[in-house]
C-alpha cells in the first residue's frame, strides 16, 4: 500500500484489524483530502471532522482489544437525506438549511452500531429530485472525471451526486445513497463506481427524508461490489418503525461475491435498445453479455413490453407522493419560516422561499394529478400501469434469474449542457426507473470508458431479495472489465 487512498473498504477493514494502519490515520488522511479537493468537487454539504476523529479514536481503542464491528474505523460519507442526530440534515434544500434532527435514521444507526466513522453529509439534488445534482441549494457537486483533453465541469449524476463524487475521488471509502428512480445507479455509472439499490423494504426508510415513499430505498455506493456488499449487510434489516420494512434475514452478501454465474439465466430485455442510444453503450452492453456467457451464464432475450411507459408512470406516481410528503414543510414546526399576516400567507411565502424551482414544479404537478377531476385520469391510471410494469418483471423471471442492461443512456454530461426542457432531463432515468417501479433490486458496476474517457456502467436487475445473485453476477462483470481507471481528481493523485 503506497497511500491510504489505495485501500478499498474491504482492504482497509483488513488493514485496520491487522493494525497496519490506525483508524485515526485513515480518518485524518481522508479529512485532509476533503480539505484539499472538496473546494472543487463540492461533494459535502457539511463536514464533521471533530466527531469523526473522536469516533476514529474510539474505534482504535476497540480494535486494540481485538474487538469491533464489521465497519469499525472505516470513514464513510452520508447522503444529506439521512437524519443524523445532532448533525444538520438539509436534503439540499433551503427550507431545511438549519434543520438539526434530534434523532438518527435507522440506516445510519446501523452503520454506527458497526463502528463506521462519518466524515460528513453529502450533496444531492434537493429532496433527491434530479439526475445531475444540479438542483441543490448548496450548489452543484462536480464529477471528478473529465473528458479527454478538456477541463469542462461534468455532473456526477443525481440525485446521490455528492456520494458518487466523494467515493470516486477517494474522499470516503463508501457512502450511503438513496434510489427512488435511479439515484444510486445513475450517479454510480457516471463516476465509475458501484452502487446497489436493494429490494424495496430491505433497508428501513425510518429517518430518511421522504421523496416518494413507495419507491424510496437506501443503498450503498462504493468502489466495488465487495465494498457495497459489506455496507449493505450493515444498512439492511427489519425495522418496526417502517411499516414497509420486510422481516426477512439479512445474508452475508460478501460471501456471495465469488459464487460465479455458471448456469445462471441472464435475460436481455429487447425494449432497452433505446432509440438514439450511443453505439458505444450498445457495444459495452454486448461486451457484458459476452463476459457473462464466457463465465458460463445462459443468455436469453426477454421482453418487458411496458418499458416505454415506465418514465411517465414514475413521474405521475412519484410526484403525487412527493406533493403529499412535502406538505409537512410549512414553516411552522421546523424549517425556515417567512413571516406573514395570515396562516395561509405564511405557508405560501415560506414554501415559495424555501423550495427550489424543480421541487416546486414537482409539488405542483403532483398536486395537479391528485386534484379532483384528474385523480382517476392520471394517478389511478398510473398505479394501474405500475401493476403492468411489475408484471413484466415477474413474467420475465419465470425464464431468467437476472436482467442485464446499460445503466444510463449516456455518460456524464457537462453542467452547461443541462437540457432546458424538464422532460429531456427525465429521460436519463429510462433504464433505472422500471426496476424501481417493480420494487426489485438492481445494481450498477463500472464496465468501461467511452471514447471521451468517461466511465460507463452496466446494470443488473434481480428478483425480490436476491441481491446475492446480483452481487455474484456483478462481480463477474467487474473482474472481466477490470476497471481500475481513476478520475482526474483523486485523493491519491500527486497534488
Amino acid at each position: 500500500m503506497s497511500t491510504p487512498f489505495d485501500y478499498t473498504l474491504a482492504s482497509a477493514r483488513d488493514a485496520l484489524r491487522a493494525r497496519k494502519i490506525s483508524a485515526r490515520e485513515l480518518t485524518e488522511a481522508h479529512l485532509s483530502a476533503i480539505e484539499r479537493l472538496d473546494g472543487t468537487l463540492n461533494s459535502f454539504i457539511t463536514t464533521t471532522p471533530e466527531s469523526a476523529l473522536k469516533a476514529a479514536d474510539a474505534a482504535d481503542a476497540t480494535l486494540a482489544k481485538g474487538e469491533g464491528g464489521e465497519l469499525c474505523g472505516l470513514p464513510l460519507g452520508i447522503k444529506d437525506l439521512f437524519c443524523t442526530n445532532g448533525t444538520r440534515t438539509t436534503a439540499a434544500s433551503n427550507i431545511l438549511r438549519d434543520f438539526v434532527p434530534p434523532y438518527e435514521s435507522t440506516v445510519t444507526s446501523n452503520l454506527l452500531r458497526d463502528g463506521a466513522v462519518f466524515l460528513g453529509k453529502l450533496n444531492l439534488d434537493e429532496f433527491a429530485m434530479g439526475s445531475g445534482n444540479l438542483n441543490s441549494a448548496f450548489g452543484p457537486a462536480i464529477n471528478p472525471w473529465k473528458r479527454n483533453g478538456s477541463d469542462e465541469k461534468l455532473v456526477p449524476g443525481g440525485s446521490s451526486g455528492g456520494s458518487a463524487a466523494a467515493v470516486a475521488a477517494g474522499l470516503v471509502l463508501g457512502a450511503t445513497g438513496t434510489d427512488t428512480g435511479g439515484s444510486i445507479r445513475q450517479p454510480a455509472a457516471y463516476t465509475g463506481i458501484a452502487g446497489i439499490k436493494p429490494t424495496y423494504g430491505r433497508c428501513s426508510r425510518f429517518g430518511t427524508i421522504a421523496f416518494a415513499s413507495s419507491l424510496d430505498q437506501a443503498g450503498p455506493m462504493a468502489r466495488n461490489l465487495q465494498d457495497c456488499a459489506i455496507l449493505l449487510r450493515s444498512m439492511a434489516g427489519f425495522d418496526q418503525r417502517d411499516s414497509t420494512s420486510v422481516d426477512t434475514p439479512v445474508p452475508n452478501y460478501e460471501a456471495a461475491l465469488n459464487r460465479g454465474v455458471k448456469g445462471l439465466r441472464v435475460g436481455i430485455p429487447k425494449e432497452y435498445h433505446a432509440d438514439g442510444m450511443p453505439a458505444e453503450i450498445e457495444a459495452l452492453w454486448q461486451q457484458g453479455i459476452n463476459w457473462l456467457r464466457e463465465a458460463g451464464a445462459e443468455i436469453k432475450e426477454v421482453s418487458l413490453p411496458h418499458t416505454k411507459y415506465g418514465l411517465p408512470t414514475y413521474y405521475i406516481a412519484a410526484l403525487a407522493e412527493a406533493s403529499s410528503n412535502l406538505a409537512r414543510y410549512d414553516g411552522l414546526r421546523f424549517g425556515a419560516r417567512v413571516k406573514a399576516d395570515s396562516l395561509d400567507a405564511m405557508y405560501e411565502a415560506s414554501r415559495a422561499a424555501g423550495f427550489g424551482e424543480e421541487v416546486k414544479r414537482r409539488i405542483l404537478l403532483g398536486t395537479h394529478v391528485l386534484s379532483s377531476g384528474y385523480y382517476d385520469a392520471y394517478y389511478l391510471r398510473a398505479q394501474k400501469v405500475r401493476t403492468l410494469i411489475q408484471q413484466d418483471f415477474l413474467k420475465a423471471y419465470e425464464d431468467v434469474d437476472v436482467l442485464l442492461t446499460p445503466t444510463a443512456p449516456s455518460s456524464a454530461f457537462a453542467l452547461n449542457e443541462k437540457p432546458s426542457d424538464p422532460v429531456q432531463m427525465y429521460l436519463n432515468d429510462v433504464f433505472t426507473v422500471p426496476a424501481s417501479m417493480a420494487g426489485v433490486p438492481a445494481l450498477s458496476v463500472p464496465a468501461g470508458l467511452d471514447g471521451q474517457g468517461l466511465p460507463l456502467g452496466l446494470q443488473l436487475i434481480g428478483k425480490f431479495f436476491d441481491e446475492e445473485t446480483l452481487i455474484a453476477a456483478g462481480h463477474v462483470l467487474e473482474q472481466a472489465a477490470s476497471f481500475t481507471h481513476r478520475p482526474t481528481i483523486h485523493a491519491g493523485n500527486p497534488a
Partner: protein
Amino acid sequence: MSLDAKTVLRTARLARIGLAPAEVEALQKDMGSIIDWVEQLNELDVTDVPPMIGTGLAKPRLREDRITDGERPDDVLSNAPDREGPYFTVPKVVE
C-alpha cells in the same frame, strides 16, 4: 399544450406555494409539456388491472399498543422557527 394560468394558480393555491407572475408563465409551459408527455399512458387498456399501491412485500402487522416514545418537548421544539416557552407560535388565526 400550455396549461392555462388559472389551473396553475389553483394548483399553487392547493399546494400552498406562492408564485411570482414570471413563475406562473414558466410553469404553464413546463407543466403543460410534462402533462402532454404523460398522456401516452392513455394508449394502454387498463380495464380490470388492479392499481399497484405498494410493492406488497411487507406483511401488515400489529404491534402492542403501548407508548414507545415521548416526553421530549425540548427535542420536539428544537427546530421551531419561532417559539414561546413550550409552544410553537403561529400568526393569529381568529380575530
